[in-house]
């Protein structure tokens, strides 16, 4: 069956599947690294304390002071405005319009990378936070009192962000289909969605407070902030500082729904990687079933993809929860609920590795477009040339297939090792007895091997 093409609007060059020999090498390195990890088990936790040291006070004052923060906020608002304007007023061709590449490649994939390297850089640029803070300040000045907010229901935790994360990806790769063909999201739809999301976010900020909503509800703050926990840079008490890498991740998942956020990230990336390869046949037969039931082609395709995203989410969650259940059976274990939240952060490196493995080449190719013709001609009119780069193209030869393959497999292997490290460290902190701690980690080891090998498998059948 090849009449159900699943096309991305943006990608002109798709990755070749990794060859069998590289799959084999990747998988065997993963297994050997895992067995090695079991045998070198350290006995005292090393990442539970951040070892945070402030950087020079002048640097903190400069970067965190009002002028720079206001400038960053203004840039964020301008870029969001440009994306909405270009989407609504620009060309309908997704690859010639600023909006899709900016929202779904530059921001959506760029901020996780920047966050790991530099810390939570999205926070100052967050356009909705900037508007919220500005409105709050204006209200305080005019009314002579601070705005009153509702109490955020603690039990809700990060669940709004987890659901929002799935919705963002759903919009990109599920909604943009018509006539039974995934033609890709149109710039108009993306811009409309950005307007709707802005309205929703500002309303929630008015209800619960700007910073409160950014902590657990605002999708992009929560998602990018999660990756920032892996890196060394952070802000504490108004000071910029440097800490032990990975150490901030250990305190990330204390809020309910955190596990759902990281699982949603792994699941949505998996779906995107599997839809053209590993699960192509399954998707086609589900689609035919829905078509046979008399659903329209577009409805049938959207329903198929929605169902499969949710199924993969459930599958990833099930693997993790089985691992947690296993750990809780080891003597001296904390409760199931405590373990479930307490090991969620160990999946963040896996989620990041999945992102790198699936989108590395797309990011490199598409950023060439972002900084040449999409910058000079954001509406794709063909007559604008702001910076003299409107006629440039994407050089698809900058990456050889070998380079892409090594980055993909390398990312998965490194993510696997880092995930194992965090899990072992948490176990040593929580089990007094180090033998029991090691025993509990057979379970997390199985979970990590499952995710990493699944990731390798998806890469090895990338194009069916």
């Amino acid at each position, binding site marked *: 069956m090849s009449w159900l093409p699943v096309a991305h609007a943006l990608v002109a060059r798709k*990755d*070749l599947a990794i060859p069998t020999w590289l799959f084999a*090498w990747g998988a065997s390195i993963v297994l050997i690294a895992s*067995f090695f990890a079991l*045998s070198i088990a350290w006995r005292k936790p090393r990442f539970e304390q951040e070892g945070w040291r402030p950087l020079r006070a002048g640097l903190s004052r400069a970067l965190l002071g009002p002028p720079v923060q206001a400038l960053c906020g203004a840039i964020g608002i301008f870029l969001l405005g440009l994306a909405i304007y270009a989407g609504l007023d620009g060309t309908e061709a997704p690859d010639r319009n600023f909006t899709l590449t900016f929202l779904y490649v530059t921001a959506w994939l760029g901020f996780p990378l920047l966050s790991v390297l530099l810390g939570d850089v999205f926070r100052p640029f967050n356009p909705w936070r900037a508007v919220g803070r500005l409105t709050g300040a204006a209200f305080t000045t005019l009314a002579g009192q601070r705005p009153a907010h509702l109490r955020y229901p603690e039990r809700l935790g990060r669940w709004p962000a987890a659901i929002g994360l799935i919705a963002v990806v759903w919009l990109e790769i599920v909604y943009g289909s018509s006539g039974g063909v995934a033609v890709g999201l149109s710039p108009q739809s993306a811009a409309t969605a950005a307007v709707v999301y802005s309205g929703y976010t500002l309303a929630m900020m008015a209800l619960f407070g700007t910073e409160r909503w950014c902590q657990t509800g605002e999708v992009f703050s929560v998602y990018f902030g999660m990756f920032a926990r892996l890196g060394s840079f952070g802000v504490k008490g108004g000071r910029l500082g440097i800490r032990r890498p990975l150490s901030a991740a250990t305190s990330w998942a204390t809020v309910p729904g955190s596990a759902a956020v990281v699982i949603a990230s792994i699941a949505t990336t998996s779906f995107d990687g599997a839809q053209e390869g590993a699960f192509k046949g399954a998707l086609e037969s589900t689609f035919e079933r829905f078509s046979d039931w008399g659903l329209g082609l577009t409805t049938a395709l959207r329903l198929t993809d929605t169902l499969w995203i949710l199924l993969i989410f459930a599958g990833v969650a099930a693997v993790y929860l089985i691992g947690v259940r296993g750990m809780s059976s080891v003597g001296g274990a904390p409760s199931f609920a405590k373990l479930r939240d307490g090991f969620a952060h160990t999946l963040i490196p896996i989620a990041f590795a999945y992102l790198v493995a699936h989108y590395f080449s797309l990011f490199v190719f598409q950023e060439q477009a972002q900084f040449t013709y999409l910058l000079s001609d954001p509406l794709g009119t063909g007559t604008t040339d702001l910076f003299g780069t409107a006629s440039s193209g994407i050089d698809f030869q900058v990456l050889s297939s070998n380079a892409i393959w090594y980055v993909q497999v390398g990312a998965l292997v490194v993510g696997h090792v880092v995930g194992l490290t965090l899990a072992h460290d948490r176990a040593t902190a929580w089990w007094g007895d180090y033998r029991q701690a*090691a025993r509990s980690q057979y379970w997390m080891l199985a979970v990590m091997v499952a995710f990493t090998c699944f990731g390798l498998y998806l890469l090895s059948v990338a194009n069916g």
Partner: protein
Amino acid sequence: MSSNAMRALAGIAVVVVAVVLLVVLQSGSDDSSKTTKGLTTIVIKNGKPVGGIAQLTYNKGEEVRFKVDSDVSDEVHMHGYDIMKDVEAGGSVSFDFPATIEGVFEAELEGRKEQILELTVNP
């Protein structure tokens, strides 16, 4: 962990590596045999490719050659290589270019957004 358990684990690891290497050696032989030879003709009927999307596979450096016979007028766009050629209704158009970029690429009837070809270029 006891040293016995460790030795057992090391043993398992070695077995796993051996199995994996076996798989590698087995699969190493059939790599470069399935490339496309000769001239492929893609027939377009009612704006759709007959027999589904054509699949062509080449190694880098080889010459990609195919012909499109179409019963509709449209523009054939070879993505990635960015080659565009118009085709008349009832006419045909030929493509002949070196496979310089690795990866998987689509050719479309641009006006209809109908994919007619998936081109794979292996390194």
